[in-house]
């Protein structure tokens, strides 16, 4: 298919023309023609979506229950609200989990709801919620129950936190609530923050029994979609690094409770989990830095950063050995596949980190990313954390609680001295930092926040990418246009894509997608060859 070369600035101007002036003015600030990694400009993000525009975004409840708490298998996640919210979040995110024994608790296949009726809306739902907690306890005997608020809960004044405290006392298990009503904030992002806060308040630090191991880390912001966490667990174990806790792919409550016993927090998805990383550093003295296990080179780089942090030569040697071993397979795959993917073009609009991380994998395939953006990222996810002090806190962000965290005198333990941290930072570990997506994107690319359906169609019409990456809502619209869409939320039910084996899986899947032959058969022979008529006429 011929690619129409359109100047990105012209594309932007033409797209904005269709919008009423007020909308055009707002979208103007969220569509940026990138001036290159050395000259990162401001992009408007984490602001309200314009009603009616057809957005990719979801709600706060989705970010809290679906994303952060969803992948933990031994907690009963009870949704307080009408039935839909629990129903739609029931197994739809593909978080895999592997209980160690057939008897180990696993509630992830179950959807729990108070199924609020109109009488509960009128007279309040607290009594029903308490009863639901009792019944869940009687039937399932979980060690914890999380209560998730849906839109009506906050509006009618049900106090889920008071109910949680009362039930915790009555049932003798950990029970805590989340005020994650769907209308809070402007996207899923607010829900991540609320989930982080509750884990900090109610779970982290409860249990000092950590697993044995010299190099103990927590993996933050990894959700085991399609088995990503399994692959990372495999690699870390092979390197001799102990996974103390995962937030929250393939996780358990016990892992969260002992998270403060790790010596390092590594952050995958910065957007959804940076709050916990920050708070754990203040409270327990655990340093954090950003890693990326999407892409084989990125995985190798991240492992080296971890080894550098711990500093032990035996660990460094083992990491190098593992990288060498794993890279042999990766190289074999890429050498075979890359000639078929080289020079092709991708676009990606997902999440708050994936639209950045996956560019790495496409680079390994010799493909370029012409346009990318997040559904619910903030400016720091685009421009880097250095801009945080300059981000205006608007009314929607102010509604989300900022916890005041203090040093836990009993459990705080400095893992490194200031000098050591400084020295490591100079070696490129980048403590407390994330440089954002734009640092890794080329000049002249289009960075678009909260892409609308209309803008998506215009992008495809103008640039005909070889693959478009987004989610289920976009999937078939894009494919009807004759362009394959790769889902980067659900991986189109494939994966894992993280780590070394994941990279190989991804190469194979992209190879398959960009070389699918059926796209060339869309036109029927009689539609494709109007010449027949011409010959007849002659």
């Amino acid at each position: 298919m011929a690619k129409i070369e359109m100047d990105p600035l012209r594309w932007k101007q033409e797209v904005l023309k269709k919008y009423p002036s007020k909308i055009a003015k707002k979208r103007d600030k969220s569509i940026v023609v990138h001036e290159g990694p050395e000259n990162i400009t401001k992009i408007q993000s984490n602001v309200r979506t314009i009603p009616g525009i057809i957005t990719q975004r979801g709600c706060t409840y989705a970010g809290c229950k679906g994303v952060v708490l969803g992948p933990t298998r031994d907690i009963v996640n009870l949704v307080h609200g009408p039935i839909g919210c629990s129903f739609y979040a029931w197994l739809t995110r593909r978080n895999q989990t592997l209980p160690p024994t057939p008897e180990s608790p696993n509630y992830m296949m179950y959807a729990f709801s108070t199924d609020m009726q109109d009488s509960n809306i009128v007279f309040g739902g607290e009594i029903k919620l308490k009863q639901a907690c009792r019944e869940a306890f009687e039937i399932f005997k979980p060690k914890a129950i999380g209560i998730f608020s849906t839109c009506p809960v906050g509006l009618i004044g049900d106090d889920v936190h008071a109910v949680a405290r009362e039930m915790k006392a009555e049932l003798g298990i950990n029970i805590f609530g989340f005020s994650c009503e769907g209308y809070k904030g402007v996207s899923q992002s607010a829900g991540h923050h609320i989930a982080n806060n509750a884990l900090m308040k109610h779970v982290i630090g409860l249990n000092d029994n950590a697993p044995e191991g010299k190099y103990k880390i927590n993996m933050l912001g990894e959700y085991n979609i399609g088995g990503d966490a399994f692959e990372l667990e495999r690699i870390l174990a092979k390197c001799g690094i102990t996974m103390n806790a995962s937030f929250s792919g393939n996780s358990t409550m016990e892992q969260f409770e002992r998270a403060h016993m790790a010596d390092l927090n590594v952050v995958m998805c910065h957007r959804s989990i940076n709050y916990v990383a920050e708070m754990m550093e203040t409270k327990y003295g655990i340093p954090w830095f950003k890693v990326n296990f999407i892409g084989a080179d990125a995985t190798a780089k991240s492992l080296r950063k971890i080894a550098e942090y711990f500093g032990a030569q035996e660990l460094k040697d083992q990491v190098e050995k593992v990288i060498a071993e794993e890279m042999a397979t990766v190289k074999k795959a890429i050498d075979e596949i890359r000639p078929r993917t080289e020079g092709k073009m991708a676009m990606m609009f997902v999440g708050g980190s994936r639209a950045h991380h996956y560019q790495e994998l496409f680079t390994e395939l010799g493909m370029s990313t012409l346009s990318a953006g997040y559904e619910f990222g903030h400016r720091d996810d685009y421009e880097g954390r250095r801009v945080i002090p300059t981000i205006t806190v608007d009314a929607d962000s102010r509604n989300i609680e900022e916890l005041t965290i203090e040093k836990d005198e009993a459990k705080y333990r400095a893992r490194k001295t200031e000098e050591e941290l400084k020295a490591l930072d100079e070696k490129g570990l980048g403590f407390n930092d994330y440089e954002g997506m734009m640092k890794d994107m080329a000049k002249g690319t289009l960075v678009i926040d909260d892409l609308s359906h209309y803008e998506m169609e215009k992008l495809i019409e103008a640039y005909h990418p070889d693959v478009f990456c987004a989610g289920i809502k976009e999937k078939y619209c894009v494919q009807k246009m004759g362009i394959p869409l790769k889902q980067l939320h659900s991986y189109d039910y494939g994966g894992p894509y993280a780590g070394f084996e994941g990279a190989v899986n991804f190469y194979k899947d992209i190879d398959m997608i960009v070389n699918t032959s059926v796209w060339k058969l869309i036109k029927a022979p009689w539609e494709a060859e109007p010449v027949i008529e011409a010959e007849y006429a002659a």
Partner: protein
Amino acid sequence: MLLRHTSDIIVDREALTINPAKTCQPIGAMYAALGIHGCLPHSHGSQGCCSYHRSALTRHYKEPVMAATSSFTEGSSVFGGQANLLQAVETIFSVYNPDVIAVHTTCLSETIGDDVNQIAQKARDDGKVPAGKYLIHCNTPSYVGSHVTGYANMVTAMVKSFAAKSATKKNQTNIISGWVEPSDMREIKRIAREMQAKIVLFPDTSDVLDTPMTGKHEFYPKGGVTVPELVSTGDSKHTIALGPFCTEDAAILLENKCKVKFDTLQIPIGLKATDTFVSTLSRAAGVQVPESINDERGRLLDMITDMHKYLYGKRVALYGDPDILVPLTEFLLTLDMKPIYIVSGTPGKRFEASMESLLSKKVPEAKYKNGERADMFLLHQWIKQEPVDLLIGNTYGKYIARDENLPFVRLGFPILDRVGHSYFPTVGYTGAMNLLTKILGAIMDKMDRECPEEKIELVM
């Protein structure tokens, strides 16, 4: 085990729903609205509702599902969603230009008491609805009824907003479709065509949610009932409402508004329900039943008689929506199977009455329940107490089917892990043959897989 905590010990529950056999109203309204040509459904609430509904429908159909949202924030929840809806109407008409915007509410906008009727009127008064375009709406509070109720409410809104009575009657019959697949709606139209009955079918999602791959995304596909057709329903000579839960409210309103008499039938799933549908349509439209339809019926009967031995006495558990479960139960009884456990999350006394009349004599030991806490957890517990030979329902049943090693037929909403439901009908005689083929396939595949080697049969 996937559902390792489910046991046969049933604890009485008064508050907790586990693994629901229903979802909430707005998704039904969204699905129904997609059955109007050139319509963009609009969800008046926070973004998550619209996102979840579009995702669920998209996963089920593997098709684009377009819909917009009012994108409520905390501010809108406090001050009301009027500004959001007015902005949405303006945005939608200028960017996406539909013929109709069909607004449904959510638990959020209902709880704060937004008056969508008043807001819609304001949008019209303020000139936000261009000439020749329409803004229709219905209330779909998620804490009342189920997804089925939401479907019914949007279908009723179609009658309320469009049906009109003129001076001249039209020689046409209205068929109001319950919540079935695009394939089923297409099949209903085919049967009517075969009978030379002129009908208006609404809603109609065929050619909307089963569109061809063309290299172009048609934002408004060619299918769907048109506005002029909906207007004309007021002049039709009769209405057939298929599925009481989904369509009877609309039929009653149409009678009250335009004096069009109606019959409420079950959705034509299985032999008897299709017999009733064909007879009623023949009478209402004043047409003879052609030989071709008799032949279809005969082929279904032939299949049943040929394969009866694999069906007789088999115990079946089923779950889903009342309008599907009632005719399905009837069909299973026609096949001499035993529908033994039945749950539906959708409330309504009519369900119990229908099941009572179908089952009290033929399967007196059958257990059935609907409404709150009539969920898949309870169904699974019943199965644990005494096993079944077949499970029929939506995709969520696969976890039970695997744990209990049950033949499993997917039917209902949502089907997330197989294709075909949107292309091959379940309604009508041919649809019944499709369904029967699936039932037999599931049962016989298990026999082939598990029988002793010396007992494997070549011919069955």
